[in-house]
């Protein structure tokens, strides 16, 4: 028995060396390949604005978004909860890098259609790409009736947004995104000065736990339809993820949930207390 034990002990020592070796050997013989960075953000929105995330091929996202009235509307309005703007949307990824969406906002009775195409994917490995980039384009149709006798044509009702979304997942926790934006409005009001808006969005997320992130977002307008009316959109919120759902809860001065609205037509002053509580709920279905 004793010699056997000795031999066993001897082999155990050898084992330790051998095992380290074997794992090392596996590591060495690993083939070099690209690793695409996943989950830069949890959802397809940072808060109001789109993130660089697109859904994977065959995924249909049903998104319900709400923005209540402003917090400073007081107890009579239950701090805004009595009023609610809603956007319902279906967003579908036809291909791996291409998704389209159709939505309808109660605010100004506006329909929106967008297209999102992934130009670049952040990756490491044989090829290093430091950022993900997405091209975003949308058209909106405002169908709210006017009561001033002016009859807008179909074209008049349109506003188009183009964005380049560039983001980097800097650490597993921290992601930062820049969103240069250009919006063109086919019709402006008499007291507005120009038809377009140029803005730069900056947003990010910080992962608090594996299922909860803190998000913030700001859209700076270089010029807009009229400085006196429109403020920059600011939003802070959290993403909570449970299985197939992502819940996003936020505080923002923007009423609209579509680009042409929150970037270029936010009338509320965040620091004046005109803040809406709101949420986005996204439910993803794998259709194929």
């Amino acid at each position, binding site marked *: 028995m004793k010699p056997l034990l000795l031999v066993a002990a001897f*082999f155990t020592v*050898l*084992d330790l060396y*051998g*095992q*380290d070796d*074997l*794992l090392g*050997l*596996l*590591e060495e*013989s*690993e*083939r070099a390949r690209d*690793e695409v960075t*996943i*989950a830069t953000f949890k959802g397809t929105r940072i808060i109001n604005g789109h993130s660089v995330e697109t*859904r*994977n*091929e065959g*995924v249909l996202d049903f998104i319900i978004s709400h923005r209540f009235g402003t917090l400073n509307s007081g107890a009579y309005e239950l701090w805004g909860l009595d009023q609610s703007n809603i956007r319902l949307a279906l967003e579908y990824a036809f291909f791996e890098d291409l998704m389209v969406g159709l939505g309808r906002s109660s605010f100004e009775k506006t329909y929106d259609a967008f297209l999102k195409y992934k130009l670049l994917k952040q990756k490491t490995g044989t090829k290093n790409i430091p950022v993900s980039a997405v091209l975003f384009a949308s058209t909106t149709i405002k169908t709210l009736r006017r009561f001033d006798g002016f009859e807008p044509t179909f074209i008049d009702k349109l506003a188009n947004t183009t964005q380049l979304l560039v983001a980097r997942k800097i650490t*597993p926790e921290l992601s930062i995104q820049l969103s240069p934006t250009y919006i063109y409005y086919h019709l402006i009001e008499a007291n507005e000065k120009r038809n377009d808006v140029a803005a730069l969005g900056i947003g990010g997320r910080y992962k608090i736990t*594996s*299922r909860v992130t803190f998000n913030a977002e700001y859209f700076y307008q270089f010029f807009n339809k009229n400085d006196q009316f429109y403020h920059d959109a600011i939003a802070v919120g959290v993403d909570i*993820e*449970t*299985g*197939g759902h992502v819940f996003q809860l936020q505080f923002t001065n923007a009423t609209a949930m579509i680009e042409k609205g929150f970037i270029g037509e936010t009338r509320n002053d965040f620091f004046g207390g005109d803040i809406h509580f709101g949420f986005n709920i996204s439910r*993803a279905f*794998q259709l194929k």
Partner: protein
Amino acid sequence: MKAQIFGLLIIPSVLFGQKLIDRSAYAHFYSSTPLEDIEAVNKKAMGVVDLSSGQVAVAIKMIDFEFDRSLMQEHFNENYVESDKYPKATFTGSIADFDSSKVMKLIDTVSFKVKGSMSIHGITNEVEAEVNFIANERKLYASTKFILALEDYDIDIPKVVILNIAEEVEVTARFAFDVPK
């Protein structure tokens, strides 16, 4: 029968400290509850067996597990196994009573107990599993199946999905090692 004879012929070459590597091994896990079955496949697992000592090692990148539902795959990596922090599952161990000639003799499938340490999600546990070996003139095949408790590896299941994800998952792995001539 022919294969067995070939197998006998290659034993001598195999005995000299041969380390056989499979870079595209197959690993699969399966979780089943009345509400939902979840499974994922990894075709890029790596395994090595040292035929001189009976030592084995396995390294599996978590990110290479493929799910039917892409979102599930993202959640697996982000929320459950945290593959940013713990990119790989590894196993190192040795085959009990290993006898390479027995492995290569291929009269039938030969079954060995493998003991060692498994690391997943930053937690290491001593484990034991049955591994079946079978060989032909070109390949040495190894396969195993065992049950893994998520709790043992500190993988949390949130209460809202407790009915969707089983506490124990069934793991299957298959290796095909090229046998040098």
